[in-house]
């Protein structure tokens, strides 16, 4: 095992070499070296992203070193960007770091396309206006992340126009086709002797063969239909149980236990049918991404029922089951063989699409097609709402229902929005300033709460839909950075970024709010 595999062993078991390669080609921009921003980068530098850049015009203060592990006493008065770059960079020799002690807006004034070289842009400690501007400037290939921590509350918003996932890592990808076995599978099932005298042989008939036999018998006595109601499925279970010879026939137990899951009609899931109907699948162009091209090829395959029987490509994976080695390996190769055949058919479709689009056949690898076919029942496309849509076309009905739940953390989203408005008016955040004294309580709380009421009213909601105690709590926090919350949010955000960069697992859509006072959280699609 090489040195890199050794170092990354524990994470490669989660996202494999593909995921790692994606991380290594990513370049992440951090706007402002806040505590939470540096915590996010820490969790990205450690697993080995390609590059990171820290942009921050400020100098290190006492407040910084009390909340940010990557700024120390030696850093006081020095460039925050440079020190964060140095202390984060030493975490991993394989990662290349950069820094600029400048304001992001002045960089953009000189270089309007600056953001386009980054895979992810993370902003924190910026005004609402700046965040919206940066979100707007991110291209369709750059993920925008805006994270806030205020006292014990944390919030993150993610936006990218389109995110596609092939390897969503579902718990179970097995697609056994018990209801409609393909030819090789059907003849495999009949190769077992259910009348054998040999108890060892009988006890090792793979449960898939048992299911196929009893399902076939069911269909013959039910006009070709498979059991659909709960009662019918129980009857099928009873039929199988009646075939058992001894309570030790674990293979029959396995068959009975998988009736509910495996004896369903094989169909194309509705979520995938929706994708088939998507305009991007319908009308491919020379700019179409790999995902949509292979998806179209899969759709063409499904529509060619002579080849597919109208089903998605077979995953080719089977679970372990009580069986003799030979019969298990044979069964495995039957499923794998069919899966391979399906991949070949899809590949032909991909190639003819590429030819039609005037693109090279090699532009999509066989590995990509294979993996796409294997997980074709679990594909996912997330189209994040833009920040502009969130602000200009608020989902007021949804918001009303979230606010109606007294346990919800949603009020903090509203109060943090109002805090941004407070900042625009006052040039400081509510509750900022010395921690003693009463100004925050007497002046800031009512001011902030009236901004909360105004925001609610602008959405057509009751002005008092957010409890004043929570507004008070945000003022109490006084925009203070508490390291535990920065670190918690740093963990959550980096995890989401890893999922987005690797296109594996499913990221949240689109806003996560954490209340550290109650240790509860929720995701809202705003």
């Amino acid at each position, binding site marked *: 095992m090489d040195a890199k*595999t050794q*170092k990354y*062993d*524990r*994470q*490669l*078991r*989660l996202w494999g070499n593909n995921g790692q390669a994606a991380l290594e080609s990513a370049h992440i921009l951090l706007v402002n070296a806040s505590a939470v921003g540096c915590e996010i980068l*820490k*969790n990205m530098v*450690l*697993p080995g992203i390609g590059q990171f850049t820290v942009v921050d015009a400020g100098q290190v203060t*006492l*407040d910084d070193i*009390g*909340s940010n*592990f990557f700024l120390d*006493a*030696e850093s006081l008065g020095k460039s925050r960007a440079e020190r964060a770059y140095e202390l984060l960079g030493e975490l991993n020799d394989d990662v290349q770091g950069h820094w600029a002690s400048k304001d992001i807006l002045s960089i953009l004034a000189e270089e309007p396309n600056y953001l386009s070289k980054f895979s992810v842009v993370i902003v924190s400690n910026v005004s609402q206006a700046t965040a919206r501007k940066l979100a707007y400037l991110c291209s369709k290939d750059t993920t925008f992340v805006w994270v806030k921590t205020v*006292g*014990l509350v944390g919030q993150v918003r993610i936006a990218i126009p389109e995110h596609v996932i092939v390897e969503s*890592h579902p718990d179970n990808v097995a697609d056994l086709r018990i209801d409609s076995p393909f030819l090789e599978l059907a003849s495999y099932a009949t190769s077992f002797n259910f009348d054998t005298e040999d108890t060892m042989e009988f006890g*090792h008939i793979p449960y898939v063969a048992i299911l196929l036999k009893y399902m076939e018998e069911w269909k013959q006595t039910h006009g070709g239909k498979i059991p659909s109601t709960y009662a019918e499925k129980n009857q099928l279970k009873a039929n199988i149980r009646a075939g058992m010879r001894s309570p030790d026939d674990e293979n029959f137990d396995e068959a009975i236990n998988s009736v509910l899951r495996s004896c369903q009609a094989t169909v194309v899931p509705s979520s995938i049918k929706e994708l088939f109907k998507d305009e991007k699948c319908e009308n491919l162009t020379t700019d179409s991404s790999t995902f949509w091209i292979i998806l179209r090829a899969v759709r063409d395959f499904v529509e060619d029922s002579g080849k597919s029987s109208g089903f998605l490509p077979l995953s080719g994976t089977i679970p*372990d089951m009580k*069986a*003799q*080695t030979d019969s*298990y*390996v044979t069964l495995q190769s039957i499923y794998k063989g069919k899966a391979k055949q399906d991949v070949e058919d899809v590949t032909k479709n991909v190639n003819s699409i590429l030819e039609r689009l005037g693109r090279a056949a090699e532009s999509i690898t066989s590995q990509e097609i294979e993996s796409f076919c294997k997980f074709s029942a679990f594909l996912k496309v997330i189209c994040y709402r833009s920040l502009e849509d969130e602000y200009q076309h608020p989902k007021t009905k949804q918001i009303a229902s979230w606010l109606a739940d007294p346990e919800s953390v949603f009020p903090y989203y509203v109060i943090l929005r109002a805090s941004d408005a407070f900042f625009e008016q006052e040039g400081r955040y509510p509750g900022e300033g010395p*921690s003693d004294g009463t100004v*925050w309580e007497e002046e800031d709380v009512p001011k902030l709460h009236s901004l909360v009421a105004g925001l609610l009213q602008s959405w057509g909601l009751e002005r008092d839909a957010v409890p*004043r*105690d929570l507004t*008070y*709590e945000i003022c109490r*926090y006084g925009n*203070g*950075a*508490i*390291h535990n*919350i920065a*670190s*918690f949010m*740093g*963990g*959550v955000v*980096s*995890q*989401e970024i*890893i999922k987005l960069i690797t296109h594996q*697992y*499913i990221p*949240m859509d689109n806003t*996560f709010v*954490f209340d550290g*006072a*109650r*240790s*509860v*959280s929720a995701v809202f699609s705003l």
Partner: protein
Amino acid sequence: MVDAQSTLTLDDSQRWAGVYKLLDRSSLIHPEFEPVDQIKEFIKEAKILVIGAGGLGCEILKNLALSGFCNIHVIDMDTIDVSNLNRQFLFRRADVGKPKAVTAAAFINKRVQGVTVTPHYCKIQDKDEDFYQEFALVICGLDSIEARRWMNATLFGMFDPENPDTMKPLIDGGTEGFKGQARVILPGNTSCYECSMDMLSKPTGFPLCTIANTPRLPEHCIEWASVLEWPNKHGERKMDTDDPKDIQWLYETALARAKQYNIQGVTYSLTQGVVKNIIPAIASTNAIIAASCCNEALKLASTSAKYLNNYMMYSGNDSVYTYTFEHQRKDDCPVCGNAVSKMEFRGDKTLEEFMDFLKEKPDAQLKKPSFAIAGKPLYLQAPKSLEEALRPNLLKPLKDLVSSGDQITVTDSTLPFSLQVEITLV
């Protein structure tokens, strides 16, 4: 040694501005909180114990230091391995082979001024109750079930309801891949670690007959190589799963068997994963769970907000999901419960079969159990002479050794408590 750095004094109220706002200001959602200056002093002076300086431990030490805790101790018996570097950020390549506790403590002491982390390079079992008695709070960031059971039982054993100073809150964190949990355990008040043993997934193991006769998966071949073939070929020499040579041998042996049976998928990495029981681990999940633990520690120590009651689960595979709930005490918990645990078992089964049952039972998971009734031993793992004398009992049917209603005392050298089982023979 006096250097420029140690003479530099930092203004606490500026440096800890974020935390101090929380401590100086009252709250309407938690009106019980009274902001008094003694709280800040308490945070600075309270002795906090961190168990484990690994993935969670590194994060916990950093978080405590930046929460204003200045007197921290850490115990860890491990040394640094290359595969730790993808998340244990207090260590560098040059540190490989050094004790984790010592290296982590030195790093924090240098990075965060005014904080003293004291390392203990040893096992938790090497320390006695007097040692644990000194701490205000214990935070566990371990991957070993055994060590957590020990720590949990020890802190509960120290608790005297008449003496509040003996109540040591235990905050426990654990992770696996994109998932994890944080919980607060208060002796005399909440459920304990032992109460939740049944929430753990069953230890994975394959039936011996599958490994020996009908292998189907690459894992079966690897288990065959390590469980059956290793003792055959190496006799008394124990396998060292940290030695690449031993892993290589297992890999080649498993691969040969897989070829013979036409089984695909045996790799070096899978071999290592199976024999070392490797759990995927990444920086981000550790950060989330450790931060939750330390957030609770700060809330508990400062009373500035309600602490977690008592369990938070986190899952990041599909979106971001947390679930916070009150985990219930088990009446028959051998550590914190009063009731005797009741079990039914077939009287014609042997004591050995009963022993195997307890080894696999998720909420028991015993390694080497010994059995006694009313002080009279049925079977003992040690000393050797007694073990040999009592061994014939293992093969006797249970009904020849005990009667329904008997209380069997089960002990295990890895656990600092005993299990009382009221048996009903069926």
